[in-house]
């Protein structure tokens, strides 16, 4: 045990002291915070208000244009010709001309600007005019706008589910996201750190230091120390990422002075959608609709909050811990065996296949499991130790009977012991074998070599 700790310590310290580790650990949270905060920052910094001069020959739109953060409207009683002539000196950015016959010819709306008018500004003005024309036409036809709006049914509002426990907010949206998140975290951790274990083994072999080491320690101790050491590096990195991301985000948002940054972000997103049409958003959104959207988004937010609150976080985190560690141990033992079996990194590919296939399979199965978390596929793949760390973690947020989790964990532990036994035997023989790349048949023989 003392020896394993000595090895673990070296494996851990060597990796943690590496420049690449430090850079990765610091850079990732910075990037994450940047991705989260940059749009907010840009949105809050965007105080560049455009001045719009409106010339309304139809006399209908005087009160329609409301000054916003982006656009400042002023209605002037000028002839369009004069306005056009004086435009450059006037200090306005955009000139809007609404001809007298706008009601009959909506396409006669004209925008003038020195530079190209942004799509956002254009559609904002278009929307306002369009809606007013619509209003006026509705009034002329004797239809109340409120009546019209009441006829619009929001189909997207019917995403509530009825659960067994009565009328509780369904957490399926949050559960899906969380499930994916956990599955992805486990999947990437196994690949990232499993590959590090493999490279570590390979390094010892190609450095030819392995025989010196195993004349002092048992091969199993070396393998175990390496797997645990790299695992701890992974945990350290994750922990630092989480802490740094939270710390940085908080610090940065404090610097930007927005304690309601998230709120602002949501509002901004809603506004963005009305003013800045994306490629898919060529049909303008009416302000009323935008307001509804904003409301529904706020509603969504509280819904997610409620849903997250209903999840059993203790169970979730315990399960995540178990499957995270169990999955890593199981696979990294295999990665270690692969590292021992070959002489150089180019030969690795052949033996990676049996490791990557169940991992990728688990990730693919996860997509089905999200849709049917209690089906037979979900059940069986959350029992098989090679896929259970990913598949079970997708299921847990939806609620899984405790006995299933217990059985799956027992199988995972059993699977790990079996795999570690086989891996240790391949490792033991492999680290001293140089030269020819072994075949699968030879690997199988190694397992039964006498120590």
């Amino acid at each position, binding site marked *: 045990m003392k020896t394993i700790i000595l090895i673990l310590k070296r494996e851990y310290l060597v990796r943690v002291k590496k420049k690449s580790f430090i850079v990765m650990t610091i850079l990732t949270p910075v990037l994450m915070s940047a991705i989260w905060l940059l749009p907010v920052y840009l949105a809050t910094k965007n105080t560049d208000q455009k001045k719009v001069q409106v010339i309304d020959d139809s006399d209908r739109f005087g009160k329609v244009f409301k000054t916003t953060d982006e656009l400042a409207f002023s209605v002037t009683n000028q002839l369009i010709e004069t306005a056009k002539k004086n435009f450059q000196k006037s200090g306005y950015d955009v000139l809007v001309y609404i001809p007298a016959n706008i009601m009959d010819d909506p396409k006669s709306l004209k925008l003038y600007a020195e530079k190209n008018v942004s799509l956002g500004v254009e559609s904002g003005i278009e929307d306002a005019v369009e809606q007013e024309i619509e209003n006026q036409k509705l009034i002329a036809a004797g239809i109340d706008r409120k009546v019209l709006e009441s006829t619009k049914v929001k189909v997207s509002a019917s995403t509530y589910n009825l659960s067994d426990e009565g009328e509780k907010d369904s957490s399926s949206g949050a559960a899906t996201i969380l499930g994916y998140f956990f599955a992805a975290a486990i999947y990437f951790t196994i690949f990232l750190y499993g590959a590090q274990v493999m490279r570590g083994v390979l390094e010892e072999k190609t450095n030819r*230091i392995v025989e010196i080491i195993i004349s002092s320690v048992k091969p199993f101790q070396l393998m175990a120390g390496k797997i645990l050491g790299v695992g701890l590096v992974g945990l350290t990195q994750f922990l630092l990422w989480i802490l740094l991301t939270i710390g940085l985000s908080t610090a940065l948002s404090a610097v930007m002075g927005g304690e309601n940054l998230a709120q602002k972000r949501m509002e901004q997103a809603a506004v963005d959608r009305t003013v800045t049409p994306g490629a898919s958003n060529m049909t303008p959104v009416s302000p009323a609709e935008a307001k509804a959207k904003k409301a529904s988004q706020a509603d969504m937010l509280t819904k997610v909050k409620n849903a997250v609150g209903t999840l059993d976080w203790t169970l979730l985190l315990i399960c995540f811990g178990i499957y995270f560690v169990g999955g890593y141990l199981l696979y990294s033992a295999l990665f270690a065996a692969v590292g021992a079996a070959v002489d150089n990194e180019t030969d690795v590919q052949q033996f990676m296949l049996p490791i990557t296939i169940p991992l990728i399979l688990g990730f693919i199965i996860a997509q089905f499991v999200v849709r049917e978390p209690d089906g037979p596929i979900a059940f069986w793949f959350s029992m098989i130790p090679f896929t259970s760390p990913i598949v079970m973690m997708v299921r847990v947020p939806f609620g899984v009977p405790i006995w299933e989790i217990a059985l799956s964990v027992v199988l995972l532990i059993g699977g790990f012991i079996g795999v570690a036994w086989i891996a240790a035997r391949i490792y033991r023989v492999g680290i001293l074998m140089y030269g020819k790349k072994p075949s699968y048949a030879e690997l199988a023989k190694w397992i039964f070599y006498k120590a």
Partner: protein
Amino acid sequence: MTFNPTFPVTPILETRNIVKQYAQHRALDDVSLSVPKGSIFGLLGPNGAGKTSLIRIINQITGPDSGEVLLAGQPLHPSHIQRIGYLPEERGLYKKMKVGEQLLYLAQLKGLTERQAMEKLKIWFTKFDIKPWWEKTVEDLSKGMQQKIQFVATVMHEPELIILDEPFSGFDPINANLIKDEILELRNNGSTIIFSTHRMESVEELCDYIALIDRSHKILDGSKKAIKEQFKTHTYHVDYQGDVGEMPAAFEVVNSQPADDGFTRADIRIPPDASVNDLVRVLLDRVAVRSFGENIPSMNDIFIKAVGK
């Protein structure tokens, strides 16, 4: 103190009827050795004979299929690892690790505490005059420098038994001599050294005992002196001027060729029970002798002769 091989000594290491079978071939077949304490023991044999397999068994890297290994009279036990120092033929170091850190780590794996390791390393670093290397990473050192570090790693825990597999490969003659002196000093301080090599001149120079392994079998072992005795051909070489003429029937001239200045060099074999004096007398009567001596087989000759059988 010089080693006296005729003095009876207890073996520090004994292997008894070791058999090691790999899938297709038998690496060791009934190999029994006895390594006297305080000797330098040459483990010789052609490539693939089974030397490394035997060394790995002694180091408990692998186990024998049958037979047993005794260290100082006790069957091998994991705690014996600390009493053995092993320099493998395929050796290396962690390239990115600093020399000092690395040696401390290896010493701790051998069971030393960090403080003990530090003390021992200080002595070795002073001795080899390599103190500035402590903070360097291994990849910054030349191959010869790395070999020195590996040697230090092998002996720093003051093992009773030191096993060196091809210790001189990769050393320039100056450093090879340095290591040779260290080996002798370690022996004089009471350690036993098993020394596996192809380089017969170093065997000639260093070894007190040898064992020769060929195709999984031990074919020869004993003190170097006894083996040479066993392999001697009873031939004598003589440099002379003149004509020996017809020699008596007992003395057989096996080889005769002209040397410089009109001298002739001849090898003459005598029967094992004959007296050398008789040969000398015959020669003195007939020719002017410049030099005369026994042809003692070199280790190289013995190796080739024994393996070629």
